[in-house]
């Protein structure tokens, strides 16, 4: 790593970045293969199936990426367990840590302040995790719970129907596909915008790939975290002159922009299709 005059602060560990990479690959594949089936009557879906070599290939990839999803869910549990152990807190204090990932009252206040900021107020005194980031993180949990359980039912319908009525599979289909529409629609529009596509970051915020941001960025974007680091005297410990490697930055840009573009194309196709349906009915 090249040494520079600029100070960097690590925001995501290698393990966290690896988990997010797994999420990207599996989520994008699940979305593309799943939406091709959900919108099978559309030309773009037919083209996706042709490109992959048929619906059976889509199905195989979808299930493979489902396995990756359960795997990264498991890795996330390990991550949370180790950070809990490292924090030295009891489980409740860890979960309800005001600077943790669980939404709290301060987030509601910040949200109101944010809306005020949109209309010309002061930029809120954001901490390490802003409420829309917490929403993204929590969404993965209920998303996996809902999409994962309904998906397993649809993956093993004969076994599922030994314990539940067969027509629940119809319900599972609606839940699975609409929750997936919510999840991919959300990630490919709201998350992409909040994180990458908004003018301040456009076209990509590479932090999830390169791991660190500059101290200046931290001070500006997350002043509360910066002040906390200064107050606790930890700033010197976490800051470094090691800039992310340039190959990593380049790779991050290429991969990140490819993923953001692919997701955007898919979501535009979906939105246009939905508009068509709404017009028809």
């Amino acid at each position, binding site marked *: 790593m090249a040494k520079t005059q600029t100070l960097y602060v690590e925001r995501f560990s290698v393990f966290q970045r690896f988990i997010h990479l797994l999420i990207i690959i599996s989520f994008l594949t699940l979305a593309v293969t799943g939406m091709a089936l959900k919108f099978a009557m559309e030309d773009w879906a037919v083209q996706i199936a042709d490109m992959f*070599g048929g*619906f059976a290939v889509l199905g195989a990839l979808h299930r493979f990426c489902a396995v990756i999803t359960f795997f990264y869910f498991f890795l996330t549990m390990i991550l949370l367990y180790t950070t809990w152990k490292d924090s030295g807190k009891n489980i409740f204090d860890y979960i309800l840590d005001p600077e943790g990932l669980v939404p709290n009252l301060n987030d509601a206040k910040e949200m109101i302040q944010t809306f005020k900021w949109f209309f010309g107020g002061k930029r809120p005194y954001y901490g390490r995790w802003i409420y829309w980031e917490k929403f993204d993180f929590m969404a993965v949990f209920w998303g996996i719970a809902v999409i994962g359980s309904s998906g397993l039912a649809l993956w093993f319908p004969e076994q599922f129907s030994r314990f539940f009525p067969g*027509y629940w599979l*119809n319900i599972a289909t609606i*839940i699975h596909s609409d929750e997936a*529409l*919510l999840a991919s629609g959300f990630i490919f529009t*709201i998350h992409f915008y909040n994180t990458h596509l908004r003018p*301040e970051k456009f076209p990509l915020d590479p932090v999830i790939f390169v791991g660190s941001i500059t101290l200046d960025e931290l001070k500006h974007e997350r002043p509360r975290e910066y002040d906390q680091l200064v107050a606790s005297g930890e700033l010197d410990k976490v800051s470094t002159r090691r800039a992310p490697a340039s190959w990593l930055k380049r790779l991050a840009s290429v991969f990140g922009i490819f993923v953001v573009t692919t997701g955007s194309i898919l979501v535009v196709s979906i939105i246009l299709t939905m508009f068509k349906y709404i017009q028809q009915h």
Partner: protein
Amino acid sequence: MSHKDTLLSRAGTSLVILLSALSLTAGSAFALTNDDCLGCHSDKSLTAQKDGNTISLYVDEATFKETVHAGNGCVSCHIEAEVAGDEHPFPMSPVDCSNCHDEVANTYSKSAHGVAMAKGDKYAPKCKDCHSKHDILKPEDPRSTTYPLNIPYTCGRCHQEGSTMTATHELNKHNITQNYSMSVHGKGLFEDGLIVTAVCSSCHTAHDVQKASEPTSSVNRNNIINTCNKCHVGIVDQFKKSVHSPLVTKTDKKLPVCIDCHTDHSIAQVHEKDFRLIIAKQCGNCHEHQTETYLETYHGRASMLKGGERTAKCSDCHGSHNIMPAHDPKSSINTDNIVKTCSPCHPKANLSFTTYLTHATHGDKEKYPYLFYTFWAMTGLLVGTFGFFGLHTILWVPRSIIERVKAIKNGH
């Protein structure tokens, strides 16, 4: 042999020839023999002008002797020539096959071809257009224009898309010969030389060709089952006992016949992709709601993508020629049989599994309330989430632009 013997022998031979010739022409002083005709017509260069075209008047004797008419004299068809004797008039009036083939001629006169002919349609086929003139061989002869392998070509001369006939007539069906050659019948004929396969005349008849709209046509909806039954006896037997048979279901509504599901000229092999992919559409012509709701389920959705011919189609669950109403114990979707029906694709199927709604729709509140409410709850969740965050994002855009501009001004 001496010179005298030779002379005697020659005289004898001449006498035999003379007597033979006399005996052949016995009964009519001017009667013409085939040899008389061939005296001129065996000349390959013999031509005449007719309607501005040069036509050949050559007759190949060797071929003619193999035809079904080999035993007939030329004049039995070309009557005018017989009357005229040595030099017959030209042109002569057309040969009238009905002099001998009166029954066939009668049938033909009532057919679409015959009616067109009577109306003066110059493209209407005469006997010779299908059967040729001096080359009429038995239909069993591979060289015959009416040999099964040749019939599509014989009919195709006029009925092939792009011919003068198709260009000048308003026809309901198009590309019929191309479609036929791609069909299960056509492939059997052209690829395997299967002469018992259906050719044009098998369904349309040879001389009684009528438009499908004619009630007496062999390809009219009301007669088509009997026409297919000429070969597909076992299938028709099954069909007659099924829910689609007019013998079983008494209704004013249109009941399907063979061509409604299988189509006509492009009829495909049932296990082939082409056919499997159109089943839902074919059944949907009558069972619209069932097809629509089927297409909403996994089976239907996947069927629209590449490889989709593999997923369950209407006939995989309901059967085809033997379809029975669900309450009938013989029905494939009867509770007693349904697990077996699902099991070729779902080997671990059980009775609870079979309560999966293969024609489910969330649009029917009365019939599927739980699907209806699930759908609308999910839709509410989507609308709510996107509504809030959409607004959040839209309001953020101008602020974010301002922030970016500020950052640029500050040198970042």
